[in-house]
């Protein structure tokens, strides 16, 4: 591979340090709560202790009388609603007349310090009138009144989706085996180490600056503009480096709006840092999803049709939920060939913290269900589950039944690597407990699963024809290069990716480059760090900007050296004649020549994803410029006396396309395995059953997440199969490698002790119960038995590409709106 400059790659593919590595290792990185401004006030937000209630009255008089209190806001100060999706503008910065979950914001105080703010907050008196609470998927579907919101698809159903690609009944009729399974995936949360924080400053020129630990400064900018009623040009949002995001800092948050308004009222900077308990209640994490999957297969495991139903517990607000709902049904088709596919999904509102996007957004739940379901099918057909998957992969450069365009597809190579690395063929057998791995005192098992993820969404969150990502480069006559981009570094290294790519193209050192990101005043819009879009989209925009700059320099240098333009190359901080490399100029001189010839050198680049072939209503979720692939084998040890599952090792292969920096890719893979391990073994957002819908354990001690003592050994393989849509062929890695881990562990548990735990997380209690059932001759399984009956709308029918479809829904059928 070359940098388009006729030279081998000097930066891309090399394990460089991150450009901000020194700052992070010396404690110099400024996170939002590290910002301390003169005269800054502290903000505390009073949150509802009622799960569902009308606000009858709020008395702030005692709080306001407390010395040191500067301002108090309530819902009447924020009449305009906002929300991340245009279809779910259902949040108020402070609740107006009703609270919908324990943790909903009711009033906000700005005071001289945090202690005074806290005391004042506790002096605010709120009178509530309780309403019936809705706390489960079943209740959300059954209880129409009271409605949590006055919009949606009826009662407390937020969204219903029903899509059918080809005739699944025809596919089931052709099958040798039709199997149905039901699964439940409990919700869990991001748990970033950094608690959310925001600082607002309203300057004497009446311009507002907000620093926030957000993954999406552009969307925060839009939300503030809408809610505060001041022009967007008067608001500057700066996303501080995020101390972990994982999707949890992707919504515009009430505390960001509140500190802005308080700064405007008081004329002083205002900061709000959430407590850990508040972070749990802010949530926006993994939706609890109940699933039913029915698949028809031939004897060799070839799928003839699949019908997937999902039921999402959305919590109290819309958040990204409509997209989440579609995502629970979108990516089933991009790993193994599914010629006919039907998806029905329903998201309900409940009186719990709102769910939203967490690493893998809406896809780890169905992926877990699908991969365990396929394991059961492989056993029924007596096929090796690795081989069955390997035999029926979606071909590269194809279009799926639901109109997702697949480019490069490295899943076969991924499976081969982990099968070989784990010694799968000698270790795996369908005898459960696995006789190949048993010793007298341990019950070991091995399991496999595969997955895929998007590299950015094909469509932006709000409809527009503009690029999803923009990069601006400024070159100065001293040879300095500044790259500016709206992307936000959440720890994944997106700032570094910009520097590596620009350095590669301009032949300079990445540490020569100044990177300015995530500042709505200074940087062109990038939509944000979500949907694994950043490397692909900002990378392509950076390539375009850098190539445009290189072109200007090339013209000026060629003229100066009197050599043809095509002879000029850039490397080692020089521009030179490839035929006589000693003839050339320094990079700084090249900039001087270009600036002398053309004037100030600044270039821009932008990226818009290719148009998707899907044109049906709902086709907006799922399309991506490229799909990454992952495969994992997990080896576990199950203690039959305690039910404790120990994951000893995970072999994982990830189809990265091309590593821009392999050591950063490794870090994302290992971190994804870690997070998948936490989800399958222990992490859960659990609420008390006494109808108060209070979180059982909103603390880091009791919300169990893996420590060094639980983390498994990881053997990683990176598969490089460059994708034509990726920058230098690169695809995503931040989210995809999480996906195969939960089902691989679940399948390994079955292999070890012969019980199916069809409910995530796989806790010792569930394993023990299933083992007891096994001993007693009952169904050796723990999991849901059925899914609720739902009055689904008539499915929107779409002919598949194989049937000659054009990507639109069939006109003969009434379209459900």
């Amino acid at each position: 591979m070359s940098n388009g400059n006729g030279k081998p790659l000097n930066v891309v593919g090399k394990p460089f340090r991150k450009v901000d590595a020194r700052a992070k290792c010396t404690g110099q990185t400024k996170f939002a709560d590290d910002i301390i401004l003169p005269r800054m006030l502290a903000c505390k937000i009073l949150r509802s202790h009622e799960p569902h209630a009308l606000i009858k009255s709020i008395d702030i008089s005692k709080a306001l009388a407390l010395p040191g209190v500067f301002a108090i806001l309530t819902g009447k100060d924020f009449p305009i609603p906002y929300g991340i999706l245009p279809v779910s503008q259902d949040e108020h910065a402070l609740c107006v007349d009703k609270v919908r979950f324990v943790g909903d914001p009711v009033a906000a105080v700005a005071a001289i310090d945090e202690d005074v703010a806290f005391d004042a907050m506790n002096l605010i008196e709120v009178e509530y009138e309780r309403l019936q609470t809705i706390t489960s998927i079943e209740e959300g579907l059954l209880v129409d009144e009271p409605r949590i919101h006055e919009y949606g698809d009826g009662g407390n159903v937020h969204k219903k989706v029903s899509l059918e690609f080809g005739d699944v009944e025809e596919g089931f009729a052709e099958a040798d085996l039709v199997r149905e399974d039901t699964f439940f995936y409990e919700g869990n949360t991001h748990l970033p180490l950094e608690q959310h924080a925001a600082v607002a400053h309203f300057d004497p020129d009446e311009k507002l600056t907000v620093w926030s630990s957000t993954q999406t400064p552009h969307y925060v900018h839009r939300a503030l503009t809408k809610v505060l009623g001041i022009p967007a040009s008067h608001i500057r949002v700066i996303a501080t480096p995020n101390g972990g995001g994982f999707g949890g800092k992707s919504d515009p948050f009430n505390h960001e709006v509140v500190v802005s308004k308080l700064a405007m009222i008081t004329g002083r900077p205002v900061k709000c840092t959430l407590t850990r308990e508040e972070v749990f209640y802010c949530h926006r994490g993994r939706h609890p999803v109940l699933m039913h999957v029915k698949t028809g297969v031939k004897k060799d495991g070839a799928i003839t049709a699949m019908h997937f139903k999902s039921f999402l517990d959305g919590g109290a607000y819309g958040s990204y939920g409509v997209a989440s709902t579609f995502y629970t049904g979108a990516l089933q088709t991009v790993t193994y060939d599914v010629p006919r596919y039907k998806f029905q999904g329903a998201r309900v509102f409940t009186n719990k913290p709102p769910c939203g996007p967490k690493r893998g957004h809406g896809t780890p739940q169905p992926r877990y269900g699908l991969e365990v379901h396929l394991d059961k099918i492989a056993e029924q057909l007596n096929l090796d589950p690795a081989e069955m998957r390997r035999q029926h992969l979606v071909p590269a450069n194809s279009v799926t039944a639901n109109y997702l365009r697949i480019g490069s597809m490295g899943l076969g190579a991924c499976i081969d690597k982990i099968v070989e690395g784990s010694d799968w063929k000698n270790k795996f057998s369908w005898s459960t407990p696995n006789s190949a791995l048993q010793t007298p005192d341990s019950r070991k098992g091995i399991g496999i699963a595969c997955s895929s993820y998007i590299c950015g969404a094909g469509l932006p969150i709000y409809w527009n024809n503009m690029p999803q990502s923009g990069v601006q480069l400024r070159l100065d006559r001293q040879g300095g290069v500044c790259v500016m981009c709206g992307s936000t570094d959440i720890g994944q290294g997106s700032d570094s990716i910009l520097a590596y790519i620009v350095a590669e193209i301009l032949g300079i050192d990445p540490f020569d480059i100044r990177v300015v990101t995530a500042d709505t005043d200074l940087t062109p819009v990038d939509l944000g760090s979500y949907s694994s879009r950043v490397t692909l989209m900002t990378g392509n925009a950076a390539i375009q900007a850098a190539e445009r700059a290189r072109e200007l320099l090339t013209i000026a240098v060629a003229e100066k050296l009197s050599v043809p333009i095509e002879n000029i190359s850039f490397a080692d901080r020089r521009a030179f004649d490839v035929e006589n490399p000693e003839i050339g100029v320094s990079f700084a001189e090249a900039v001087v020549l270009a600036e002398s010839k053309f004037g100030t050198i600044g270039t821009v680049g932008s990226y818009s994803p290719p148009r998707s072939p899907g044109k049906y209503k709902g086709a907006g979720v799922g399309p991506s410029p490229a799909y990454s692939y992952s495969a994992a084998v997990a080896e576990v040890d199950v203690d039959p006396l305690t039910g404790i599952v120990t994951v000893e090792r995970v072999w994982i292969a990830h189809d990265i396309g091309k590593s821009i920096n392999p050591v950063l890719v490794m870090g994302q893979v290992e971190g994804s395995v870690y997070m998948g391990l936490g989800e399958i073994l222990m992490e859960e957002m659990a609420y008390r059953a006494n109808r108060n819908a209070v979180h059982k354990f909103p603390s880091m001690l009791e919300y169990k997440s893996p420590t060094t003592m639980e983390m498994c050994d990881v053997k990683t393989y990176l598969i490089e199969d460059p994708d034509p849509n990726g920058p230098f062929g690169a695809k995503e890695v931040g989210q995809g490698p999480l996906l195969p881990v939960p089902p691989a562990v679940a399948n390994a548990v079955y292999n070890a002790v012969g019980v199916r735990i069809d409910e995530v997380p796989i806790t010792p209690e569930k394993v023990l119960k299933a083992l007891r059932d096994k001993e007693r001759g009952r169904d050796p399984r723990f999991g849901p038995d059925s899914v609720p009956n739902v009055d689904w709308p008539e499915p929107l029918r779409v002919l598949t590409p194989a049937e000659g479809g054009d990507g639109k829904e069939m006109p003969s059928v009434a379209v459900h709106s």
Partner: protein
Amino acid sequence: MQKGTQQKAHISFTLNGEPAEVAFAPHKTLLEVLREDLALTGTKHGCELGECGTCTVLVDGKSILSCLMLGLDAEGREVITVEGLAANGKLHPLQDTFADLGAAQCGYCSPGFLLAAKELIEKSPKPSRDEIKEALSGNLCRCTGYIKIYEAVELAAARMRGEPMELPRESLYGLE
């Protein structure tokens, strides 16, 4: 009485090798004193309840959770924070290896890990992988899966023992 106007406490102690004096509201934790009264924001907080290890600093050479220690208790003691690790513009070997291996992803938990690891290496110059896991088990990291952190501690320990140690290729590029 309004807390913001409470009479301040005053302590003298050694901070990152230098004598320091600070006045602060007496109920403040060492974490708050460091961050708010001494503007050393390198020490981070994740829970302020002693659960996550993020606020780890060294007091008299021992790692402690600064969110659970009163500032008043630092009187006369020797405190080292992440700001005190590098000396004369040169990074501590742990900071170097954390940077080289991507052991600091978001970097928020890194100060705490660095100080816990420093304590370990000073006690046990050649720690086994199990010793490292044990020593760091009180620090949570959500980004790395801990693996790059173990590798960075092992590499730094080797360098501090004066042993040349090459990084295994698989740590940087994965397995062949």
